[in-house]
């Protein structure tokens, strides 16, 4: 049983560990033990009966569904973030409990009955809105990715998609358009920016161009059909489609309209990137187009013969136009099939059926978005930036297939 470092094993994990000791066949009994009326059921079953699920009544319906005890889906936490297991997922929606996290001083506990949003500054009427108020406005649902701009790791061949770029996830977000709220308060035409502020211990703040507020910004209170998770900003957060994740301020408590940006710590000393000639690029809002093969990828083990290469591609500047696959380390490229629907500013699935002859080779994916931007190689990007990493670093990822079936990350 894999236990996350620094965390006490949960009851389930402890039980699962014991199950391993008992051997795989005993799994059903342990699962049953977690259900109502289970102890009696468990006592009655024998090892032989457990091998055949048709010989014993199943678990009765419950209040909340659970994952199969055979599935081990976990995020990978550090002190400041936790990564989505991209290599373990299918389709493009991230299960809410596996959505990546990036917090600036922990996840606050907020009682929605006591939480308020204040909108003030260059407006005709300053307003206080509660969660209940926000839910009364016309609602909008939209499927979008959210990605942290610091989403690049390298340096070892034993890195999984989760390690390399697990700070991107996708959900269906539901809430109210910020433009609807702007109309309620009567925005002064001279306002050019707004400040968004969170109710966490970092009192996180970002300045956002007002046009984004009118275009497609939302205040969202639901994710994948239920209230957003505390880690995602409960009871509600700002959501800025296509923009770097930290700007979608979580636990939103205040919006102030202004005629200048505030130059907060996050938008100056943190989420900026050193580029060529000693310059520092700031207000890099858009997430650059990126793709990654999530299968086959480390730590998968593959066999020669037919392999469906799968992955996701996305762009903060619009729709994915094309994904290409190389199975010869970038020498030649062939188009992959996109798994529709292809949505604006959304993870888009791709697949490419390929017959591997078992000889060592490297597979890569590269995306082109609807603006004509093509995902660069690591070399091209490092040369253009004058750096080997940093924020908004989105190079092509290559996976080396070894003759023994191991799949390893190619670095550089």
């Amino acid at each position, binding site marked *: 049983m894999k236990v996350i470092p620094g965390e006490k094993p949960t009851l389930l994990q402890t039980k699962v560990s014991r199950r391993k000791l008992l051997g795989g066949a005993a799994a059903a009994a342990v699962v049953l033990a977690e259900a109502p009326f289970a102890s009696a059921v468990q006592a009655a079953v024998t090892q032989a009966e457990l091998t055949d699920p048709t010989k014993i009544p199943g678990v009765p319906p419950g209040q909340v569904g659970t994952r199969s005890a055979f599935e081990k889906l976990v995020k990978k936490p550090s002190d400041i973030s936790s990564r989505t297991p991209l290599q373990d997922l299918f389709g493009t929606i991230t299960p809410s409990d596996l959505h990546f996290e990036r917090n*600036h*001083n922990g996840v606050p506990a907020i009682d929605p009955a006591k939480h*308020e949003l*204040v*909108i*003030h500054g260059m407006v*005709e*009427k*300053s*307003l*206080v*809105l509660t969660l209940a*108020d926000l839910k*009364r*406005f*016309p609602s909008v649902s939209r499927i979008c990715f959210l990605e942290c701009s610091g989403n690049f790791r390298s340096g070892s061949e034993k890195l999984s998609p989760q390690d390399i770029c697990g700070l991107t996830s996708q959900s269906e977000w539901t809430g109210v358009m910020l*433009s609807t709220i702007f*109309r*309620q308060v*009567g925005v002064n*035409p001279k306002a050019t920016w707004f*400040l968004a*502020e969170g109710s966490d*211990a*970092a*009192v996180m*703040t970002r300045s956002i161009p007002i046009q984004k507020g009118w275009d497609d910004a939302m205040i969202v209170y639901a994710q994948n059909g239920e209230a957003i998770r505390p880690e995602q900003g409960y009871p509600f957060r700002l959501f800025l489609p296509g923009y770097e994740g930290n700007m979608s301020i979580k636990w939103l*408590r*205040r919006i*102030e309209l*202004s005629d*200048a940006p*505030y*130059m*907060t*710590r996050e938008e*100056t*000393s*943190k989420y*900026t990137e050193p580029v060529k000639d*000693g*310059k*520092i*690029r*700031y*207000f*890099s*809002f*858009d997430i650059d187009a990126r793709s990654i093969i999530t299968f086959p990828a480390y730590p998968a083990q593959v066999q020669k013969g037919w392999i469906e290469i799968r992955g996701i591609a996305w762009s903060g*500047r*619009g729709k994915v136009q094309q994904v290409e696959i190389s199975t010869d380390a970038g020498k030649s490229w062939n188009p992959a099939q996109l798994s529709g629907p292809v949505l604006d500013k959304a993870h888009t699935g791709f697949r490419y059926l390929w017959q591997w002859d078992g000889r060592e080779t490297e597979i890569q994916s590269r995306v082109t*978005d609807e*603006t*004509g*931007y*093509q995902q660069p190689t690591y070399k*091209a*990007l490092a040369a*253009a*930036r004058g750096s080997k990493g940093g924020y908004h670093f989105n190079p092509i990822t290559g996976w080396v297939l070894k003759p023994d079936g191991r799949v390893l990350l190619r670095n550089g």
Partner: protein
Amino acid sequence: MNAVFKITLSILILGWASGFGSFSKPSSGGVFTSDTIFNFGRLATPADIQRWDIDIRPDGKGLPKGSGTAQKGKSIFAQKCAACHGVTGVEGPNDRLVSTDSSQGKAIGNYWPYATTVFDYIRRAMPFNQPGTLTDEEVYSLTAFLLEANRVIKPGTELNAQTLPAVQMPALKRYILDDRRGGPIIR
């Protein structure tokens, strides 16, 4: 904004302030129009705004009364900040705050473009384990201590709502706006 719209808007807002009725326009198919005013929520009082309106802009807007010096800031830093940032703001274990050399990470002296940001961030988020507990005087003094250690201000400079926005940060000249708008160029 044309005159008719202005008048309509005024009527809507007046209606809101006086709290009567809904102004939702009837529309076919149950779709709201972009200028529908819903009257949800409540008007914010000055107290609603003041409790949270703590942001500071580079032009000094939002800076509170009070003042501070590096001399006072030194002892506060030793007591409340040094455990994470090191005795002189260099040693860590967390973010290095002091450097005048551009090769030494993202410290205040070599990377922060505005002095007002130092005040704003310390006041809202520091100390990390007790955020929001410092007085305005303490924040001015810590800001002075850090700017002096980074050799951005002369020793003995008193910082207040007038002097702080006037401080010129060495890194400002390095900042360039992101002007990428998609297309084939890699930058």
